[in-house]
């Protein structure tokens, strides 16, 4: 253990008043039992639910992928019929994008953002609970449909006219559309939570230029969600409206426009890729800093690159539409933007390389996954630059080349860092370390399996194999490539199995982690593993970007927050100077009831328009119940007149203490 770490551990072990501690625990305690499950508003509990639920959807999506690979392993196979194959690839894509990738990234953010900025809960805890339930309802709705043979079958982006009323009768596309509505509500709720928490609840001293890079990635992602999701929010209402009440948004016969769908979808869909990818950049920065024992090189350049990525990410959507009639200027603009986005990504990669170069590398599983990311994401980036050019894109449009490309960027860019993040933070979630040896097996199996699966797809695409075909003829010459890909998929499945065994085994007999097993720098490592329900007994203050590495004994802690009600400290946006105390609401059943009411609106709504007025009425009732409850502090602090005191006075008391 280094000198610095010893100091930080000492500095973060203030003497604790047992009685106060007990009171604080009682105040923040979550109710037990089934009602407790439905009522909890603790960000860690809800975030863990997000992560576990999203991972289950990942396994389901993976099984669908395995079925597709089995079907395609040899020419003329008839394991799956064409209709079922359509359902399976559509559900696979939808699951991975909407039910796995976005929620798991937000889930990890909702767990760690409050811990890293040093507060006790997110800004709107009941909204947070609502977000999870609405996401769960969306996922269950999709899979209920899938198992009843009404799963979506028009691809994960459901292009009209195929998904319109004429060519997709039945309920399949409606279920898809409303699932989008549910998951986008959840994503928007999570985004507002995260930004508000970061803007208003940072510990004193954590000015904007000291926010951990992980938190910056979550903020940038959340802003992208805020500006991208409204497009699909509209689209996912217009499509069911076309199908259910005969509007004509996408019907060319009555002046509607099929390409309008593509614009609306990709105006959301392209930023979506960055919504998935940018949080992964945060995992990478955290992991690299910890395992090289130095702060990430070029903090300012890193943050500016993230923000630049956030902006440029909105100028790319039309590159999904190069095969549609577009003005040449438009094509050139979107080609330019698509190439430009590699600049901020490049800046970040070089900053990480500089960090690795100048740091002292500890080769643990999380870092190995990050190194795997570098290899795979670079290949995905190269095929991305190729696809950004219109002539090449037109040649390989809708072929397996595109499939190869986006799996390289999405699995390479998001899933590899995600596995690294799970190895990295598992000790914080559970108090147990994941097995290191199994971790290495997991990595190598996954890495080899991944490349064996997706690398041949570049070649298959160039040979002309189209996406979304359920089988092919032996004369096409695609058999070996497909067989290799199918074997690779089996290896990937084995890797995930190793991971699951590792998780289950470590939960039982894993090495006990302690507070800060990796000697990391950010505030979440200053509390026990798993963290107490109230996060911090005394909120810390910070004096630099790497609090646990630079914290001294004389760094003050925050005292004076109530232990009787769920109080947090609100600070100002730029410099995190204390502004006021603020009571957060406790457990409540209303978020769950509101989620049910909203769920009723959109699920019944696809069968009868009455679903909407009934749902609106039920939602109003639920909201009324939600807001009619009294805050706890009314009883506790009713008599205490709040005294306003200037910040200077607050600082004086800091010096005086």
């Amino acid at each position, binding site marked *: 253990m280094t000198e610095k770490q010893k100091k930080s551990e000492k500095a973060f072990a203030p003497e604790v008043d047992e009685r106060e501690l007990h009171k604080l625990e009682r105040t923040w305690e979550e109710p037990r039992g089934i009602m407790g499950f439905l009522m909890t508003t603790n960000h860690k509990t809800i975030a863990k639910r997000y992560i576990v639920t999203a991972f289950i959807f990942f396994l389901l999506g993976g099984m669908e992928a395995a079925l597709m690979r089995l079907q395609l392993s040899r020419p003329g196979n008839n394991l799956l019929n064409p209709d079922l194959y359509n359902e399976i690839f559509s559900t696979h894509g939808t699951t991975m994008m909407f039910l796995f990738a976005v929620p798991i990234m937000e889930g990890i953010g909702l767990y760690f953002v409050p811990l890293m900025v040093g507060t006790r809960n997110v800004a709107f805890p009941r909204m947070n609970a609502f977000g999870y339930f609405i996401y769960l309802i969306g996922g269950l709705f999709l899979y209920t449909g899938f198992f009843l043979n009404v799963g979506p079958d028009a691809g994960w982006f459901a292009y009209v006219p195929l998904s319109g009323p004429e060519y997709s009768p039945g309920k399949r596309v409606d279920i898809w559309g409303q699932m989008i509505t549910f998951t986008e509500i959840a994503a*928007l709720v999570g985004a507002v939570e995260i930004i508000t928490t970061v803007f208003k609840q940072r510990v004193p001293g954590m000015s904007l230029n000291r926010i951990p890079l992980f938190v910056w990635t979550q903020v940038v992602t959340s802003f992208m969600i*805020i500006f991208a999701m409204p497009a699909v929010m509209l689209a996912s209402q217009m499509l069911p409206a076309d199908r259910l009440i005969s509007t004509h948004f996408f019907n060319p016969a009555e002046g509607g426009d099929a390409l309008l769908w593509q614009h609306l979808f990709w105006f959301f869909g392209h930023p979506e890729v960055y919504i998935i990818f940018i949080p992964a950049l945060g995992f990478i920065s955290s992991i690299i800093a910890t395992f090289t024992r130095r702060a990430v090189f070029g903090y300012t350049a890193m943050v500016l690159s993230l923000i630049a990525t956030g902006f440029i990410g909105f100028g790319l959507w039309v590159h999904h539409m190069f095969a549609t009639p577009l003005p040449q200027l438009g094509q050139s603009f979107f080609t330019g933007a698509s190439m430009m986005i590699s600049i901020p990504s490049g800046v970040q990669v070089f900053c990480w390389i500089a960090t690795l170069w100048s740091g002292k590398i500890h080769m643990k599983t999380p870092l190995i996954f990050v190194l795997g990311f570098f290899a795979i994401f670079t290949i995905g980036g190269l095929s991305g630059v190729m696809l950004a050019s219109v002539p090449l894109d037109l040649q390989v449009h809708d072929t397996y080349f595109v499939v190869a490309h986006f799996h390289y960027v999405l699995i390479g860019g998001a899933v590899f860092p995600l596995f690294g993040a799970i190895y990295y933070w598992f000790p914080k979630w559970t108090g147990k370390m994941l097995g290191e040896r199994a971790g290495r097996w997991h990595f190598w199996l996954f890495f080899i399996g991944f490349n064996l699966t997706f690398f041949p797809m570049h070649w298959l695409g160039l040979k002309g194999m189209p996406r979304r075909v359920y089988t092919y003829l032996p004369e096409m010459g695609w058999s070996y490539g497909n067989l290799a890909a199918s074997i690779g998929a089996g290896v990937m499945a084995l890797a995930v199995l190793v991971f699951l065994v590792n998780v289950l085994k470590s939960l039982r007999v894993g090495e006990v982690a302690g507070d800060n097993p990796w000697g990391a720098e950010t505030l979440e490592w200053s509390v026990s593993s798993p963290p107490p329900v109230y996060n911090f007994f005394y909120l810390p203050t910070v004096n630099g970007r790497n609090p646990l590495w630079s914290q001294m004994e*004389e760094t003050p802690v925050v005292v004076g927050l109530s232990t009787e009600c769920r109080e947090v400290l609100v600070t100002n946006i730029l410099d995190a100077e204390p502004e006021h105390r603020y009571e957060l609401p406790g457990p409540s059943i209303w978020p769950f009831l509101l989620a049910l009411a909203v769920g009723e609106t959109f699920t019944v709504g696809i069968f009868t328009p009455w679903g909407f007025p009934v749902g609106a009425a039920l939602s109003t009732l639920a909201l009324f119940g939600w807001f009619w409850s009294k805050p706890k502090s009314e009883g506790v602090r009713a008599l205490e007149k709040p005294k306003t005191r200037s910040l200077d006075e607050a600082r004086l008391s800091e010096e005086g203490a």
Partner: protein
Amino acid sequence: MTGRPALEVSALPQHGFDTRAPLWWGNLFLLMIETTMFGILVATYFYLRQNFLLWPPPHTHISPFLLDPVPNLLIPTINLFVILLSCVPMFLVDKAARRGDKLVAQIGLLICIIFAVAAIILRWKEFWGIGFTWDENAYGSVMWFVLGMHMLHLMTGLGECVFLALWVFLRKFDEKHRLDITVLAVYWYWIAGVWIPLYAIIYFTPRWQ
């Protein structure tokens, strides 16, 4: 206490208005979402318009036959003024909430409710002034969508007014709900403000072609 220096915060107030309040920020982000949504809706409006030689399209399906069925202006314009005027009582309620003036806030909230109900009734009439239903053509669809989306916000604003009025009348005029009133005011100004360009776009631009 801990042996460590402490930053004492117990004397800080329990609430703050405007940028100090997390709720104010939460509302701001909601409005960013909704503004983006209306922005994309406007883009949709003009995108669909490219498909039409005449906008609005001639009314040929049913009688009376109209070559240029531009939407009726009278009721929409009255409603625009109703919506804009409703900002005045809302502004007074906002100020009263900050001062802690319960009586003005109560009366103001009631006036706001009356304005909101009037706006919603007039909006209902606006739908029938379009001249097309949502299922006749893309023009009808997008007009109904713009009006409907904005009406949803009027209804949400009305719901919030009713809720806060009930709280202030039946319970008390506490700090938390005074803050809520000021945040509602921001939401309300936004509903009115966003309607000015939307009104101009859907009612005036068809007359300028």
